């Protein structure tokens, strides 16, 4: 059984040439924390994630394994953070894009998608097996919606 019923085929996405400013505007509009990024052919390039954006605002010493785990002693103001944000918002999203740990196919069984969500995946791209074209997104919200429909059927 395929997973058509459990993922959404209408989803917001970014082109790899879009800027960080485009991405954040879209995130605020669509109230999402991850956005898939596709190339000119529609193939998945990766996910633009909020945590990548936050990482760009943090000092390098805080991003290392075993690095600074507490920055309470750094008194950077919101204004200084905004300055950093201004520096990166014209950068293309591909610089902040990473391929997610899990990608599923349209034929992936729904239970596998539920398992991935249970294991902590947030938004799972659904790509075609040939060419990796992005055809959908499976999120917790999509799964809940799909389960709700089934329950009421």
């Amino acid at each position, binding site marked *: 059984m395929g997973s058509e019923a459990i993922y959404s085929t209408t989803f917001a996405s970014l082109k790899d040439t879009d800027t960080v400013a485009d991405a954040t505007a879209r995130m605020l509009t669509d109230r999402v924390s991850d956005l898939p990024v596709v190339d000119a052919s529609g193939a998945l390039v990766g996910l633009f994630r909020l945590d990548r954006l936050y990482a760009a605002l943090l*000092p390098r010493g805080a*991003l290392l394994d075993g690095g600074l785990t507490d920055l309470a002693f750094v008194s950077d103001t919101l204004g200084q953070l905004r300055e950093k944000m201004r520096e990166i918002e014209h950068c293309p999203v591909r610089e902040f894009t990473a391929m997610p740990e899990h990608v599923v196919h349209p034929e992936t069984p729904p239970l596998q998608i539920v398992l991935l969500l249970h294991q902590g995946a947030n938004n799972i791209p659904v790509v075609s097996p040939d060419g990796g074209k992005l055809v959908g997104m499976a999120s917790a919200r999509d799964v809940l919606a799909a389960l709700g429909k089934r329950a009421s059927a």
Partner: protein
Amino acid sequence: MHGETHAAAILFGLPALGVATTLFVGTYIVIMTDKVNRAIVALLGAGLLILVGVMTQSDALAAVDFNTLGLLLGMMLIVNITRRSGLFQYVAIWSAKKVKASPWGVMLMMSIVTAFFSAFLDNVTTVLLTVPVTLLMTEELKVKPYPYLFAQIFASNIGGTATLIGDPPNIMIGSATGLTFNDFAFHLTPIIAVIMVATMVPLYYVWGRHLVATEENRRHVMSFNESQSITDARLLKQSLAVIALVIVGFMLQRQIGIEPATIAIFGAAVLMLLDNLGRDSETQSKNVHAALSEAEWITLMFFLGLFVLVHGIQKAGLIDLMAQALLKATGGDFNVTTLAILWASAILSAFIDNIPFVATMIPLIKSMAPNLGGDAALLPLWWALSLGACLGGNGTLIGASANLVVAGLADRAGIAFRFVEFLKVAFPLMLLSILISHAYLYARYL
């Protein structure tokens, strides 16, 4: 089954010396290639020595220096618990502010802090604690981080040489010879202070005097509130109390007649107890599990395998042959032998891991005792080995674990550390430190 009878029954009828030497050299070569984790290689080599009959399991267990392992483990546990308090960040930030966040001042102070911590902690742990703070400060000052990280590598290896507990070679030498914390402090700490100063002078001329930061960027660093970096004041007090007691224990080691491993492990146990007093059993389990799992088990297992390997070649007679060859090469002259050990240790340690090197050299030096005036006369040789093996690690990027760890952290932060670029400044600086050590040994002991 006992070793002596077992050693004769070598697989394929080959002599013990040939088999042990082949396994020993093969193991060291594989360790040097870095293709397989060094703990795996050392344990495999040790296991093979038993399997082919060079020694029995009871021989192997007897060969393991549990004093070295216990001291290492105890200090690892104390550091892992203490780091949660934010103490190390506090000291680093406080010291940078003391020099008004001037770029050269920060480089100097971070080097001094790194050297000081390294004198009491494992070098790798020290750089793991200090490098993130250095990266933060250089980012705020908008200066190139490379010179700072380079200086910290040097400071870490130099500082580690200063005490019994600063660097594994010293722990091994101390354990094998009975030399105490005070012996190391009396004989090595003064010259290490001189070497530290002598190293910072060229670093100032190479990089320090060119470092510039704007007033605004310096104000950013000056605005750091170091007291906010203390994340657990209760743990901080407990840690400082235990560390102080452990250091006092090391200093009184001879008077109280207790080995350093016992002092360190006991200190770690007391700190774990204090840290967990009044906490529920689940939290206690979580805390203790975290402290234990953060110990460098790879290093500990590597040591365990090495002790067995070295005992294997010692039992087979290779160490005696090597000692005789060294004495022949130096003409049995005490001064020449001492300085030869210093320079050879330094040059070799710049390219190979100094831990297996020192593990091999310890029995070798001991076996030369009858020709060099007995055990009591060997003191300068131990200092030569310590200075050469520890400081030699500064010569190349692969010379010491701390170098590789800093290079790895830098790489992940987008800062390139290249072997040749590092070598061009590091090797002459390392030679300078050995030259100073040479003069010191000659003037004080020879």
